[in-house]
C-alpha cells in the first residue's frame, strides 16, 4: 500500500488531508471527531481576541439542482475564549499525538503575536498558520486580508512571529490580490516555513431579488463575504501553481480551495501542494467524506505507481507553461461518434452561436456533422455534449512540427499591423452576417405558429 503520510515543512501528519481553519475546527470536540473519522490534521479556527458574530452568516450558490457549488460566509475568527481553545488543543494532542494540530492565529501588536504564539506552542500545537486572508470583517480592523494585501506589513508580522516560534510557521495568503506571488515572496523574506492558499475570495454570493439585499441577509442588510467551495478550485489551482513555479518562493504549499474529493486533492498536489485543506465539503457533507478521499488517493497512487505523496507533488508543473511556449503546430479536430449521438444538437448550436460555425445539420438525421475545414479544435462541442465519449478531439497534425508564438516572435513572423496577412482568422471562413437572419426568429412564436410559420399567414396578435 502507498504511504499517505507527509512531513509538511516539519509538520507530520498520517495523511495530507487537513481541515482548514474554519467552523469545522471551532472546538476540540469537532477536531477529535474528525481525527477519529480519518482526517490527518486540523488547522484550528483562528484564535485571537475573541470576536462577536452576527446571526445569518452563510450564503450558498446553487447550480440547477446542485446545492452549494459556491459558498460564502461573513463569520469572523473564533468567538471562544483563548484559554478554552488552548486547553482543547492540549487535550486533542494528548489523544492524537501523531495527528497535526495547527494553530491559526490573528492578532495585531507584536506583543500579542508573541504571547499567542508562545501560548499555542505551550498547548502543544504542531505549527502555526498566520491568517492573512480573511476578506470580511477582520480586514476592516486592519487584520486578515488587509495584511495579506500589504507585503511589507505581512513580512514584518512574520518576522515578529519568527522571533518566538519554535514550530513551523505557515502563512495563509489571500487571493484578493493581483499577483499572489508578491505576498508569498514577502512570507519567504520574513522567514516563514510554508504558505497556504487560497483563503476565501471577496464576494457577494447572491442578491435577494424580492428585498433588494445581498445574501446572507442580516436584518435587511448584508455585506461582502468570503467565497469558497467547488466553484473556486480553478482560481486556487492557478494560484498554487504560480507560487509553486516561482523560482524565489521555494516554500512548501498547503493547497486550499474547492477540494471535496480525492481528485480535487490530487490536482492541487500535482500543481505543487504538499498538503491540502478542506472546509466547505466538510461543512456540506460532514467529516465522513474523508473515507472517500483517502481511499481514492490510495487507489490513484497504486494505479500510477506512486509510493509516497512526495512523488506526486508538483508532478504536473513541468507541463504548465506560459501561453507563448505552446506548440502552435498541434491541431485537434472534433469527431462525432454517430453511434453514440442522441441528437440533442447542443454541439451544433454551441458551435454556431458560440464558436466557429464548424458544425452543420443535415436533412434526415439528427446527428450533426463536423465541417472539418472550419473546425479550429476549440473543444466547445465536446464540452457541451451530454454523452460520454460521443465527441472526441482527435489529433490531426503529423506531430512532427513544433513552433511557438515565442519562436515566431523571435523569427519576426507575427502580425504587427491591424490588417496583417498573418492574422490567425484571416483565412478562416465565416458566413455572411445577413445569412443569420431568419434562423432563430420562428422560435420566438408560440406553439404551432413556430412550426407553421412560413406555411400559413399568421394574423397579427390582438
Amino acid at each position, binding site marked *: 500500500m502507498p504511504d499517505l503520510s507527509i512531513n509538511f515543512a516539519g509538520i507530520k501528519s498520517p495523511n495530507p488531508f487537513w481541515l482548514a481553519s474554519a467552523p469545522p475546527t471551532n472546538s476540540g470536540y469537532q477536531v477529535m471527531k474528525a481525527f477519529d473519522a480519518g482526517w490527518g490534521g486540523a488547522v484550528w479556527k483562528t484564535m485571537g481576541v475573541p470576536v462577536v458574530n452576527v446571526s445569518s452568516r452563510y450564503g450558498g450558490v446553487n447550480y*440547477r*439542482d*446542485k446545492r452549494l457549488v459556491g459558498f460564502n460566509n461573513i463569520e469572523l475568527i473564533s468567538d471562544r475564549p483563548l484559554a478554552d481553545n488552548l486547553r482543547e488543543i492540549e487535550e486533542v494532542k494528548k489523544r492524537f499525538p501523531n495527528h497535526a494540530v495547527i494553530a491559526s492565529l490573528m492578532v495585531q501588536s507584536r506583543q500579542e503575536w508573541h504571547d499567542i504564539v508562545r501560548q499555542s506552542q505551550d498547548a502543544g500545537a504542531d505549527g502555526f498558520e498566520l491568517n492573512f486572508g480573511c476578506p470580511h470583517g477582520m480586514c476592516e480592523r486592519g487584520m486578515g486580508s488587509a495584511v495579506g494585501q500589504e507585503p511589507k506589513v505581512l513580512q514584518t508580522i512574520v518576522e515578529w512571529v519568527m522571533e518566538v516560534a519554535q514550530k513551523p510557521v505557515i502563512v495563509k495568503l489571500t487571493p484578493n490580490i493581483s499577483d499572489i506571488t508578491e505576498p508569498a515572496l514577502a512570507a519567504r523574506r520574513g522567514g516563514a516555513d510554508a504558505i497556504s492558499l487560497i483563503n476565501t475570495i471577496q464576494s457577494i454570493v447572491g442578491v435577494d431579488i424580492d428585498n433588494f439585499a445581498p445574501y446572507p441577509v442580516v436584518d435587511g442588510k448584508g455585506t461582502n463575504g468570503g467565497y469558497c467551495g467547488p466553484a473556486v478550485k480553478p482560481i486556487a489551482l492557478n494560484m498554487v501553481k504560480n507560487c509553486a513555479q516561482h523560482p524565489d518562493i521555494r516554500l512548501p504549499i498547503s493547497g486550499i480551495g474547492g477540494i471535496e474529493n480525492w481528485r480535487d486533492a490530487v490536482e492541487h498536489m500535482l500543481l505543487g501542494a504538499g498538503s491540502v485543506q478542506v472546509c466547505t465539503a466538510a461543512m456540506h457533507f460532514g467529516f465522513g467524506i474523508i473515507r472517500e478521499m483517502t481511499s481514492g488517493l490510495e487507489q490513484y497512487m497504486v494505479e500510477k505507481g506512486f509510493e509516497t505523496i512526495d512523488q506526486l507533488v508538483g508532478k504536473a508543473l513541468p507541463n504548465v507553461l506560459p501561453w507563448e511556449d505552446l506548440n502552435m503546430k498541434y491541431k485537434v479536430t472534433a469527431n462525432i461518434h454517430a453511434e453514440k449521438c*442522441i*441528437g*440533442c*444538437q*447542443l454541439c*451544433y*448550436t454551441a458551435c454556431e452561436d458560440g464558436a466557429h460555425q464548424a458544425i452543420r*445539420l443535415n436533412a434526415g438525421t*439528427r446527428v450533426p456533422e463536423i465541417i472539418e475545414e472550419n473546425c479550429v479544435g476549440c473543444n466547445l462541442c465536446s464540452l457541451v455534449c*451530454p*454523452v460520454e465519449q460521443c465527441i472526441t478531439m482527435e489529433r490531426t497534425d503529423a506531430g512532427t512540427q513544433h513552433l511557438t508564438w515565442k519562436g515566431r516572435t523571435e523569427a519576426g513572423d507575427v502580425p504587427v499591423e491591424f490588417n496583417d496577412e498573418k492574422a490567425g482568422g484571416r483565412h478562416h471562413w465565416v458566413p455572411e452576417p445577413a445569412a443569420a437572419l431568419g434562423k432563430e426568429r420562428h*422560435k420566438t412564436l*408560440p*406553439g*404551432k*405558429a*413556430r*412550426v*407553421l410559420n412560413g*406555411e*400559413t*399567414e*399568421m*394574423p397579427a*396578435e*390582438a
Partner: protein
Amino acid sequence: MAEYSIPTTEQEFQLNFAQLKPHMNRTEALYESSRCLFCFDAPCIKACPSGIDIPQFIRQINSGNETGAARTIYEANYFGNACGKVCPTEVLCEGACVYNLQDVKPIEIGRLQSYATTQVIKSGKQLFGPGAATGKSVAVIGAGPAGISAACELRALGYEVDVFEAKAQPSGLTVYGVAPYKITNEEILAEMAYLQAQFGYRVHFNSPINSREELSKLENEYDAIFLGIGLGKTSELGLPGEDKINCTGAVEFIAELRQHHHEVAVGRKVIVLGGGNTAMDAASESSRLGAEQVILAYRRAKDEMGAYGFEYDLAKGVGVKGLFNVAPVEIVGNGYVSGVKFIRTETKDGKVSEIAGSEFVEPCDMVIKATGQAKQTNFLSLIPGLKLDGKGRIIANAHTGQTTNPKYFASGDAWNGGAEVVNAAAEAKLTARGIHAYLSK
C-alpha cells in the same frame, strides 16, 4: 384476480384510482427540470401536436419562473394542465426525448407541465385577457377541448364568444371520458374556471343545439360558428342481444364513472370488446372498481391492437386478461347479460376471417363495448353545404378549419375522427385564427 376491492367510499375510490401522474412539488420539479438538456430544434416540441416550447418552459421552471412557464404552455395550448396529465406523453414529447436514445429515463415533461400550470391556476394569476373588441361574435358549439380552446383564442382576438354545451360541465371528454386515474374532475374543472376567468367567454350549459331552427338562430346572431361537437355515442355493433341489461358502451360507462365514482356498479366478470385505448381504459377501470375478472376481447392479434403499448401494459398491470382473435357473435343471457358468444378468427394477409364452427360462449355478467364512437352525421346534415368525408368526418381547410359552409369552422374529434385532447386544443387555436382571418377580410 380481484387486486382491487370494490370501493364503497370516495376515499376508497381515490385509492383504487390513484393518479398515474401525481403533481410534483417544487423540489421534484427542480430536480427533474435540471436534467433537461435544452436541445436545439428539440424533438419534444416537434412531437407535441400543439408545439409547446417545452425546453423553454422547463428552463423557466428551473429558474423559478413558474408563471412564465405557464404562459409559455398556455400560449401554445389552453389545456395546459389537462394535457400534462392526459396526453399519451410516452408516444409524444417524452417518447421523443433524446434521453431515450441513451437509455436514460426521459424528462417527465407531462408532470412538469402540470406543475407549472397548476401553480398559476392555484394563484389565479392573470396571464391573459380578452383582446380589443372587434365588435363581432362567434358561437361555439361544444365546450370540449376544441370548443373551449377556440373560445379562449377568439376572446384573445377580440370576439364576443358564446359556448353552447349539451352537458352540465365543460371540457368534454376530459371530464366525461378520460380515465379517472389520469385526471381528477376537480383539477380539470379548476383549469376550465381559470380559463373562463381569464378570457371571459360565456358558456351556456345544458343547452344542446339539435335542430335546424336553433342553427338558423345562431347563423343570424353570430358572425361565425365553430363546431367542436366531438363524436357521439358508442357505435351499435348490430349483434343479437346487444340490448340486454349490463351491456353498455364504453363512452357511456366512463361518463357515469367520472361523475359518480364508487356509486357505479361493475359486474363480477366483465368482458370489454375492443382493442383501442378506450377499451384499455374501460378494462382498467372495471378492474379498479373491483371486478373479479376482466377480459379484453379483440378480434385480431395482440400486436394488431390500436391501443398504445403502455395503455395495454397498464391494463395488464391491474389484472386484465387478453383474449385475442375472437369476434363477438351474440350477447347471450335472459334479460341480463350472462355471456358473449364468440367465434375464433384468423388474420391472413391483413384480412380477418372467422373460423367456421369455432363458436364458444365466454360467460360474464357485464359487457362493455369499446368499439368506437358514432359520428354525429344526422346533426351535421342540418348544416347547408357542409360536406363530410367517407368516414363521416367534417371536411375543412387544414390551416384555417373552415368547412365547406364558409360560416362554419371545425376542430377536434368531429374533424379529425377522434384523437387526443392535445390535437383538439391545437387545431382549435389554429381554427380560431382562421375565423379571425375570415372575419377580418
